[in-house]
């Protein structure tokens, strides 16, 4: 039995089913109806579920529960301090850290919050908030959002975060200080004579290879990149893709040469290329890409897959891959993308997909 947490514009859907079975997944629960669920995850260490919920009337908060079909409770402490020129708008990401009870939340406007009690209470990371350039940070289309948090296996001091559109930030002291990691990124949306030194860098998604943690992969706003020096510098690995625009990315945790993307036409037309839903995978660190589309719609399928709506389950050749589109469709693979099935159709527009 596989459990999917699908955050949508109309609540959280908890889907349960057997990967690859003929029958679609069942809706085991729908929580937060009428509210936007940006992201939901289960912390495997505690078994606690978290959902980032945004109410059009009542703001953004992280809710938690041990049973996603039951009652949810609010966490506390997520919000900018009194007197701040910023107010919390959305919570984009929740990521377990590398110490007992350590967990991170990435929010909009771009901030990092940390919990040391397993996600029940949160505290603002002041070092990032106090960056002198903060007042000049520019938003991406989804807002000024901190969406990617790449931990370093076994070492809580080393972090890489991605912000749209303020690039990559690196820390080697657990978030006490931060510096840029943007070398090699090319923002084609800025004229050439204005690119030097810019921090207006629209990272869309970023993941670290856990078995080779100095390696990271990134989907950029026009570009797919790899870093082999822990995010200091980046090289393009987009050659061979039908388009280098896209939002989400996934990796096989067992294969540091692996990455999976879902190309979309361009920033002006954010739908799957040629009306075909295709995941592209690499197993040689971006030297070559293979289309993985068996079982996905290949005709008149103009899908938009948002940055948190792609997730893995396990690792290796039997790894599960799941993604959801703003069409409300959720697709899955039980063989690392070699073949696909439809897990559910016609949900609300999908913001996020995670395997519980």
């Amino acid at each position: 039995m596989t459990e999917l947490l699908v955050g949508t514009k109309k609540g959280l859907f908890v889907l349960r089913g057997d990967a690859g079975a003929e029958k679609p997944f069942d809706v085991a629960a729908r929580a937060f109806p009428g509210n936007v669920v940006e992201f939901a995850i289960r912390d495997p260490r505690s078994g606690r579920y978290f959902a980032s919920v945004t109410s059009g009337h009542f703001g953004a908060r992280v809710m938690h529960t041990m049973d996603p079909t039951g009652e949810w409770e609010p966490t506390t402490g997520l919000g900018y301090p009194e007197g701040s020129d910023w107010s919390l708008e959305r919570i984009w990401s929740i990521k377990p850290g590398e110490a007992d009870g350590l967990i991170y939340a990435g929010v909009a406007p771009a901030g990092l919050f940390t919990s040391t009690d397993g996600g029940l209470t949160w505290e603002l990371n002041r070092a990032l908030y106090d960056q002198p350039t903060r007042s000049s940070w520019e938003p991406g289309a989804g807002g000024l959002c901190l969406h990617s948090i790449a931990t370093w296996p076994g070492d809580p001091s080393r972090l890489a975060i991605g912000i749209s559109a303020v690039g990559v930030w690196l820390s080697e002291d657990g978030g006490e200080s931060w510096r840029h990691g943007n070398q090699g990124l090319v923002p084609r949306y800025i004229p050439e004579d204005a690119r030097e030194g810019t921090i207006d860098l629209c990272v869309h998604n970023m993941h670290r290879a856990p078995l080779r943690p100095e390696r990271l992969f990134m989907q950029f706003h026009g570009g797919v990149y790899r870093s082999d020096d822990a995010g200091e510098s980046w090289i393009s690995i987009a050659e061979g893709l039908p388009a280098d625009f896209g939002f989400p990315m996934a990796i096989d945790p067992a294969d540091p040469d692996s990455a999976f993307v879902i190309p979309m036409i361009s920033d002006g037309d954010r739908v799957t290329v040629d009306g075909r839903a295709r995941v592209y995978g690499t197993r040689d660190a971006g030297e070559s890409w293979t289309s993985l589309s068996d079982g996905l719609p290949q005709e008149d399928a103009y899908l938009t897959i948002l940055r948190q709506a792609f997730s893995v389950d396990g690792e290796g050749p039997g790894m599960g891959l799941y993604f959801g589109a703003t069409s409300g469709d959720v697709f899955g693979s039980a063989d690392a993308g070699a073949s696909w099935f439809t897990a559910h159709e016609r949900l609300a527009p999908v913001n996020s997909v995670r395997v519980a």
Partner: protein
Amino acid sequence: MATVKLRAPLKDLAGGNREIEIDGSSVGQVLRELEHRHPKISGWVLDEHGRVRRHVNVFVDGERVREDAPVAPDATMHVLPSISGGSR
């Protein structure tokens, strides 16, 4: 004359021209002249109050500017959609 550089979809609204030479001492003046020459672009870059739209970026010689910025006679002006615009 300033050189105004356009990308899609603005290029298409300007008759397919990627580069247009336009006289004007401010960004607003240059853009209004652009609208005059290519009426299809009216309302796309400047809003109804004559201000550069929130999700449009104008760069003059590598600096991001707004409608009241000066434009030198030999300046290069890029007009392009901002990454903050559009839909997700």
